[in-house]
């Protein structure tokens, strides 16, 4: 079965060039968060794992594992969030019926629209909240076990 590829103005993602600077700014704004901020958060958690792992008491080993797991999960969430950009500008979503009735921004009627309506980060935020909450509970359990 052939894989269902996305196209952007008729081009594949690796050969796609935005039409003008305004569209490029729209792409880059998302990449600064999805390719940048999420990834840096994951790397930061990995750094905390290393600090806890060796420099402190041996009882911190389990906490090091916990932070490594947290980092891995943030990497996965970052990867999933980054994929939103690939969908947001895909040709197949421009006239998709499920995006027919977005919330209108006051005072922006008639302005240029970039891609499909923006899907806010609700699910991703909930996922991250669940991940961090689980890690914090795990941290408390480990602390009380010592």
């Amino acid at each position, binding site marked *: 079965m052939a894989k269902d590829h996305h196209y952007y103005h008729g081009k594949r993602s690796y050969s796609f060039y935005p039409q003008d*600077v305004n569209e490029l700014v729209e792409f880059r704004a998302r990449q600064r968060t999805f390719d940048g901020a999420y990834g840096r958060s994951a790397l930061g958690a990995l750094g905390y794992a290393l600090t806890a792992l*060796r420099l402190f008491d041996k009882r911190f080993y389990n906490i090091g594992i916990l932070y490594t797991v947290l*980092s891995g999960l943030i990497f996965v969430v970052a990867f999933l969030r980054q994929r939103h950009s690939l969908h947001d500008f895909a040709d197949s979503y421009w006239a998709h019926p499920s995006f027919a009735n977005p919330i209108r921004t006051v005072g922006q009627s008639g302005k240029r629209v970039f891609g499909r309506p923006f899907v806010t980060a609700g699910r991703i935020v909930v996922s991250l909240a669940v991940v961090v909450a689980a890690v914090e509970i795990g941290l408390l359990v480990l602390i009380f076990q010592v």
Partner: protein
Amino acid sequence: MPQLCENTGSAARDFAMLERNLLSHLRLAALLLLLAASILLNARLPSSSDPSGDTPHSSGRIPLASIEVAAAVVAIGAGIWEYRRGYQEMQDMKGFLTAVKPHFYVMSAVAVVVFTTCIILISDSGI
């Protein structure tokens, strides 16, 4: 070498993002090297349960420290590669940055190294 880039659109902000990403890799690499040094020198911060901060000697110290150093080099390499690739693609005005997926795989490997290190440190009390 530094280049002059016209600041159209969000060019300066985009290049700054690449710099922040690179700095995150360098910070992680510094911590990996710190971990390697700590393993090699048998040192850790002293605590009430272990005032000396020393740990018993083990033959696994050098291989484990070598793996941490290798992971640090890989993290720096991945950061530089992502920076250079992103830099070029931004200059070329490409819509999507293609370094994301390979970079994700490489950094996942570094995370696996850290996770494995945790397991080894727990299982071998001599390290």
